[in-house]
């Protein structure tokens, strides 16, 4: 504890107890008559000093913590309570100050703050690291996506250029047919990466586009094409084979079911059923037996290969008039975890 006298010049120390002397390391003669600021040093916060001085000038009590220095130069956190002492007329005759060494408390606080800062720094570092890695991966995905699409365009252009330079006949038709198959695969790629969900695509969206393409090359007065495709989420792995299959069956029907300007209609439908994905392609044309077997040969075996790859079953039938192709394909786990449906995969999908 210490007492100062504000009525004397520079508010000097006029009394101090033993505890104050041992805390600061000074002898009474060394501090007597001096201002308390003698305890301040380089690390004392000037803002704290200003608050203390303002309180003393205003004659207000104050509680404050600041860095003070001992006689030997070592510092300590001084937790002070300073209060004015009035005489009977209300005049301030003394300032009274009690001190406590708060260094221990401060050390803990500083250590905790340091630890906290370090942790924050490390988390920040880690986050920046992960963000950079993610950006790199995203850039890579865009690059690959761009390349796949560009290459599909190049392949398609290559086929079409060769087809243009090939005289009318089987070879020209084959090249054009290939370009169209590539077109079907291209549509899948365009749709897969445009929606943001790179794992699945919507079969209906594909079918809409695909039917527009099919109809574009048709005399629609003679051949009508209608599609009833449910909005079905299909995994990326299934997308390409399904697209190829639909393209093959519909193109076959349109090209070969109606020879000699025979009018007719082609109906394509797809629904989700308990067993998976059920697709039906029907026409009222000449039927399987009536068509020339040759041109449909490759298309048909392509369809059967794709259905096998999808672990599905296919049934071709003559329905007089016309042909009916029914396909049942089990949906894989990714297709099934769709928001469009909520059915869990059943045990029947486990069979090879």
């Amino acid at each position, binding site marked *: 504890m210490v007492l100062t006298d504000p009525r004397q010049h520079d508010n000097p120390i006029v009394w101090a107890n033993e505890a104050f002397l041992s805390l600061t390391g000074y002898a009474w003669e060394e501090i007597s008559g001096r201002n308390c600021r003698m305890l301040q040093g380089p690390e004392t916060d000037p803002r704290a000093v200003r608050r203390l001085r303002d309180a003393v000038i205003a004659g207000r009590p104050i509680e404050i913590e600041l860095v003070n220095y001992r006689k030997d130069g070592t510092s300590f956190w001084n937790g002070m309570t300073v209060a004015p002492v009035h005489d009977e007329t209300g005049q301030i005759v003394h300032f009274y100050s009690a001190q406590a060494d708060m260094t221990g408390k401060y050390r803990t606080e500083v250590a905790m703050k340091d630890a906290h800062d370090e942790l924050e720094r490390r988390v920040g570092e880690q986050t920046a690291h992960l963000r950079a890695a993610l950006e790199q991966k995203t850039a890579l995905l*865009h690059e690959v*996506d*761009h*390349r796949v*699409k*560009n290459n*599909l*365009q*190049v392949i*398609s*252009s*290559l086929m*079409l*250029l060769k087809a*243009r330079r090939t005289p009318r006949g089987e070879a020209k038709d084959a090249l054009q047919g290939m370009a169209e198959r*590539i*077109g079907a695969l*291209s*549509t899948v*790629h*365009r749709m897969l990466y*445009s929606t943001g969900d790179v794992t699945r695509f919507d079969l209906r*969206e594909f079918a*809409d*586009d695909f039917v*527009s*393409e099919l109809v*574009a090359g048709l005399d629609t007065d003679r051949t009508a094409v209608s599609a009833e495709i449910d909005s079905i989420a299909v995994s990326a792995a299934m997308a390409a084979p399904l697209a190829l299959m639909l393209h093959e069956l519909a193109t076959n029907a349109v090209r070969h079911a109606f020879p000699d300007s025979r009018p007719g209609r082609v109906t394509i439908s797809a629904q989700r059923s308990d067993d998976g994905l059920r697709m039906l392609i029907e026409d009222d044309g000449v039927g399987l037996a009536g068509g020339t077997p040759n041109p449909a040969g490759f298309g048909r075996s392509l369809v059967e290969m794709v259905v096998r790859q999808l672990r599905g079953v296919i049934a071709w039938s003559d329905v007089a008039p016309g042909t009916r192709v029914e396909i049942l394909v089990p949906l894989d786990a990714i297709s099934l975890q769709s928001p469009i449906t909520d059915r869990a995969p059943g045990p029947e999908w486990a069979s090879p």
Partner: protein
Amino acid sequence: MTETPLRILVVEDEVLIALELECLLDDLGHITVGVAGNSADAIALGQATSPDVAFVDIHLIDGPTGVEVARALSADPHTTVVFMTANAKRIPDDFAGAVGVIAKPYSERVVAGALRYVADRRAGLAATVEGLDGFRLASAPETGERHTPVR
């Protein structure tokens, strides 16, 4: 097939794609006024030919400079710019003056449909892109005179 042939500039660095596109445009009854594979050639050809339509890929021989090319070409009020790219994510929000984008890989039908749209719009007719999944407009079509020829 088309009433008035359009004069078209093709800005595309893949020679095969450019060549096939030229054949396709010819089939559709249009005229290809030039093919450029880099930005400098594209801008110079644009100034020399003042085409009706420019198809602009984003990635060219000198990098992703198609956006600059689109900006430069659309400065000519006579020219309608359409992006044709597999990299639509690089197109800025204002489309650099282009009216839309044909996504690669494209089909002949979509190219034909996009050109029909552009021709209708230039003729001041009501144009629609319905059923053209591979062709996306920059924004709702403006009604202004921006794309009709001045002078």
